[in-house]
């Protein structure tokens, strides 16, 4: 087993009651029909129908107003903070240091009751005309229930969360439809083209770019195409190490099914508990273990996409092709604007016999960075290798449970401190976490080499447990934003891709810029931290966390966005990119044209015109404008 998350929570997840995949507003009949149809389809076929962890009524299992499972959240309190539920390793444990850390760094008042929003009862009325709804119902399951629509109006950006909690979205979808197959999607798209309404492909809704968020000014009816019922493994070829999978499958379902059969896809973005294969394709996602398994673009052999102008699919399933520009790359990163990815042929790998964690401590960020650079130069990266800065290291300390991992690290360090590294400054040291996979020999060999390189840069091994705990935390960190908001702190992460030679300067400059921006606004309680999460031959990915206390600001979300925008300007000035894996969406449109050049933008518009001339997929991401009332009127004049 790799991530501790998997071992600690997989079995429990199976117990989640998710038998009730019906939606209130749906008649019993259609559900029965559905099962029956599947049964005959499955006869003598190779289709593996996957039972998803997540029910069709997502809100039964997932928090409607925030991240993740309902039963899992941070709670601050006078006797110490806790993390509820038992899905993650720190679940149910007391976190004695967290409250103090939050008070010190973010000026939180833990005695205050958290602000939990009330479940909304009023929703914008559905604009979907009755006849179209009836037509859609003939194709697949449809819901116009308010909650079903609200929770699919957004992704996971700070703004999304803020509007969700206050039920103040300018626009929510008018209906949700759950197709089960490529053919049904074709019918839905043709229906939308005929009646000129908008479709939004919705996977896991984990988008952090605003990509999946309802376009605010759209006048036409909006139907969300929830892909989660398209989650079958169509075939699995253990010989070729390939699988063809429907695009709506959720990461953890896909991985569980593969592992049960001795394989792994190995694509694990931090959101993989909830994000979908189609979402990964549409956003060019990147997984933690990309060094071994590749990013989504390396994993995909082929996709099948329904556009309003027909289906794009290569006619052959080949490892490589020289045939002009590769249109898979029009699909990848299309952010839902050209059509719906329905089926994906993916590479799979046999499960590695040995999974080993490791950690290394470096005296400071710079030595850690040079270590990473050297590992990349020698192409010795294990499945995952991450460098955390000192702020994150300390935050990690704050998350330690009473007598567990933080203690181990400090104890280990104390001993080392005495014997070896007197020079380490606790306010500067940084930690590298490692995840190694392979045969026992390979792993041993690799660890030896990494330790040797680390030694050159002043790093020392700090044990497997620390490494493992670092990866476990990955999935818990996502829950922090909710508790932050509940105590008047807004927080968000942003990331970039940057060449090696500009990395150190970029990190320093961005941190500096954020500090300056906060100071200018009178914000004194904030956190700015970064880590180096991926390495390549030509550079790396830097991942920033930023959060601040909102006591002094009138419009917290806006303020946050201003500061993030300033940070992005700085990133780009320093030679970084608009994004490494989160995508452009609606949040980062400002930098799109500069990034791809004007002819590049024209090319994107031309692709849109070819594939979706009526703008059925009116998500308005990247270079696409929102089409409001005015534009329609204007074009008529």
């Amino acid at each position, binding site marked *: 087993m790799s991530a501790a998350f998997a071992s600690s929570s997989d079995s429990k997840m199976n117990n989640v009651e998710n038998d009730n995949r019906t939606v209130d507003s749906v008649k019993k009949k259609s559900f029965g029909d559905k099962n029956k149809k599947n049964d005959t389809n499955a006869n003598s076929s*190779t289709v593996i129908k*996957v039972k998803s962890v997540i029910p069709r009524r997502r809100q039964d299992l997932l928090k409607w107003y925030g991240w993740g499972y309902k039963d899992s959240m941070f709670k601050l309190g006078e006797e110490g903070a806790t993390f509820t539920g038992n899905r993650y390793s720190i679940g149910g444990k007391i976190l004695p240091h967290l409250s103090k850390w939050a008070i010190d760094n973010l000026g939180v008042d833990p005695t205050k009751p958290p602000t939990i929003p009330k479940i909304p009862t009023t929703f914008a009325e559905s604009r979907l005309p009755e006849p179209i709804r009836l037509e859609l119902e003939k194709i697949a399951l449809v819901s116009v229930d308010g909650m079903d629509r609200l929770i699919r109006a957004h992704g996971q950006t700070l703004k999304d969360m803020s509007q969700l909690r206050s039920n103040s979205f300018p626009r929510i979808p008018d209906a949700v439809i759950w197709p089960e197959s490529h053919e049904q999607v074709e019918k839905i798209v043709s229906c939308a083209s005929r009646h000129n309404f908008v479709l939004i492909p919705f996977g896991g809704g984990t988008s952090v770019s605003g990509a999946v968020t309802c376009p605010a000014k759209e006048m036409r009816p909006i139907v969300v195409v929830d892909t989660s019922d398209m989650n079958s493994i169509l075939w699995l070829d253990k010989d070729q190490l390939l699988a063809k999978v429907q695009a709506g499958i959720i990461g953890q379902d896909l991985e569980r099914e593969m592992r049960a059969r001795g394989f792994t896809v190995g694509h694990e973005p931090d959101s993989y508990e909830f994000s979908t294969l189609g979402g990964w394709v549409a956003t060019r996602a990147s997984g933690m273990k990309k060094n071994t398994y590749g990013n989504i673009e390396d994993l995909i052999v082929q996709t099948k996409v329904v556009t309003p102008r027909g289906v794009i699919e290569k*006619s052959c399933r080949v490892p490589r092709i020289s045939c002009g520009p590769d249109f898979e790359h029009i699909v990848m990163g299309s952010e839902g604007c050209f059509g719906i990815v329905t089926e994906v*042929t993916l590479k799979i790998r046999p499960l590695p016999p040995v999974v080993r964690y490791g950690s290394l401590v470096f005296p400071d960020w710079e030595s850690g960075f040079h270590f990473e650079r050297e590992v990349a130069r020698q192409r010795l990266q294990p499945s995952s290798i991450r460098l955390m800065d000192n702020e994150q290291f300390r935050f990690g300390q704050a998350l330690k449970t009473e007598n567990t991992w933080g203690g181990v690290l400090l104890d280990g360090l104390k001993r080392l401190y005495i014997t070896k590294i007197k020079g380490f400054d606790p306010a500067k040291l940084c930690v590298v976490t490692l995840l190694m996979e392979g045969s026992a020999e390979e792993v041993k060999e690799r660890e030896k080499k990494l330790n040797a390189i680390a030694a050159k840069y002043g790093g020392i091994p700090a044990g497997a447990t620390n490494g493992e705990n670092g990866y476990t935390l990955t999935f818990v960190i996502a829950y922090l934003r909710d508790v932050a908001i509940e105590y008047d702190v807004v927080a968000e992460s942003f990331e970039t891709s940057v060449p090696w030679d500009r990395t150190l300067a970029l990190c320093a400059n961005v941190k500096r810029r954020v500090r300056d921006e906060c100071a200018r606004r009178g914000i004194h309680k904030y956190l700015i931290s970064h880590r180096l999460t991926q390495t390549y031959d030509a550079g790396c990915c830097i991942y920033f966390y930023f959060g601040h206390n909102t006591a002094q600001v009138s419009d917290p979300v806006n303020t946050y966005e201003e500061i993030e925008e300033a940070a992005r300007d700085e990133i780009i000035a320093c030679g970084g990119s608009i994004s490494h894996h989160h995508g452009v969406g609606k949040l980062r449109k400002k930098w799109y044209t500069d990034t791809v050049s004007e002819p590049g933008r024209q090319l994107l518009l031309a692709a849109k015109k070819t594939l979706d001339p009526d703008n059925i997929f009116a998500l308005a991401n990247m270079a696409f404008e929102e089409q409001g009332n005015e534009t329609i009127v204007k074009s008529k004049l």
Partner: protein
Amino acid sequence: MSEHVNFVDILEPRRTQSGIFSFMSRNWRPQRTMVMDKYCSTQDLKDIVANSVYLDSIIEAECSRTGLSKEKLHQEVRNYLEEMGLDKKMHVIRWNGVFFLKICFMMKIKMFVNEAAVLTLKSKMGKNPVLFLPTHRSYADFCLMTYLCYHYDIDFPAVAAGMDFYSMAVIGRRMRETGAFYIRRTLAGDPLYAATLKQYVRTVVGKHAVPIEFFLEGTRSRSNKSMPPKYGMLSMTLMPFFAHEVNDITIVPVNISYDRLMEHSLFAYEHLGVPKPKESTGGFLKALRSLNDHFGNIYINLGAPLSLREYLHNDTSHSKETLKPVDLQQLTPDQFKKVQKIADYVITLQQKNTVATISNLLSLVLMQSLMKNRLLEYEELIQEVEWMVQELRNLGASVFENDVRSSVDRILVVHRSMMRLDKDRRLRLISGVLTDLSSEDKKKMKGHILQAQTMVVAVPIVQLQLYVNPVLHYIAPPALIYLIVQRQALSRDKLREDYRRIRKLLSHEFFHLEKDEENTFNKALDYCIQNRVISNSGDLYSLGEDTKLQYLLRWATWPALTTLLKAADVMTQQSSCGHKLALKLVQQRLESERVHPYCLSLEAIANCLSGLVAAGALVKLKGDQDIVYELVPDVMKESTILVNSILPSFSVDFANNFVVIDDKAISRL
């Protein structure tokens, strides 16, 4: 096939003292169908299938659907493979060969083969899989091609056999060891079995360098004539081509004609509804004893090999199916349609390769004599047979025998329990024996329970009809033209239209291809005019003056048309009716009327019902247990009127016919 074909009796050289043993123990280096770097053993084949991506995928899906364990399903697949898988044991083959030859000599059989065709085929082997698709008229078919291959040093065909043989002690095993593989009749309800079979067949075709042999019609044709093909097995065998695993597949249509079918009396009973006894080794041994008799000649006529690739015009268009792992590739609906076309076409090729035997011709003559209720003396008989030879050759049939007189004498020996010359040297049909069916038997009857008296009359005539049937496809087209013209002179267009309709109604009773019909019609029309069956002036076709030929044409299709009309009548009355009940009712109706006994044939009735469906007079629905027919009143009415208008009228007393001789009665006297 009117061109002269040279047939050789391949058993002849074995008819010497040591002929059998030295031949069966010779050093044998057979020609394979494909030259490969590595050849698979029969165990390899099973392993390839068991480890295939296809079955793995099916099992994965099945497990996730049913929750059964993978190990269990893997084991099931292994068991299925043990059940179906072929084996090859050279010593068994040799001993079987000895046994086969001994029996042939006991049965006094001559096995005629158009050697030139075999040698040409063999010379072209080595590049791609070869399918032997023989007609299936008798269990004997199973051994013939295998022996033929041994004779000509061609590797043994992998023969698809029904499970009936599987359960026979010793014989089931022996057949497997000479290359038989077993298939269950129904694949429905067991997807894992179906998948295993599919993959096994595909693997055998693609990876086993021996010919594949199976019967397109799926079962022995009890009527000794072609039936519409089944498509399942052909789909499976052609899959390697459509998946481009092999470059081509050579399809060899084979017609096997018998002077005498071992099973003819069983078949006659089956037509009337008495079910066939279950195959058992005991029964087989009993049958062996009755084989010490004369069975005459067998003609194995290999048709020109058909290159699948050429037939599909080098069609290399490919489908989205290539996106799947090759093992998982399935036929597209379009490809399946092509398979259907090929199957239908091959059946017509089998028909074209029919060898009309003297048995067939003599039976025609005897049947005609029954129809006329007029006895034929020996010399007249010879003349009549010679006339028949001539007429059938005119119609395009190939008749191998030239010395009619000696052939007739030979056949009279072969069929001496069915027909004989009486003391005045007139040809007589030997009557059946009055047997009361036990109540057990009656319970098992498939149709209406016919009276014992009916059976006595019907059995020998139905049996005789079995030898008339194989040549009917030559006679039917001109016969129908004649009957239409006989009704009333008419224009060519009208004639063709009525012909088309009636052919459709009889499309199952007289198998043919819709797309060949234009050609068949034109040829039959020319034939009728040339032979003065009909004449034409301007665009009007009226009766000609060859009354002798007209008479033959008139009675030849009489049974089929009668059955068709009665089926139509019954269905008009019922308006909606299950298949089994329909068979019973039609049979019951026919028993009470003076009709040709072959009309009572359940197979003929079923064919007529299918014809009515094809013509749109009935709609066929899948009921809970049985197929259900629903009447389409308008179409049915028109069809009935048409059939009625051309149905010839005969009044023949089959029960008290001069031509029938009751030997038992005589001996009792």
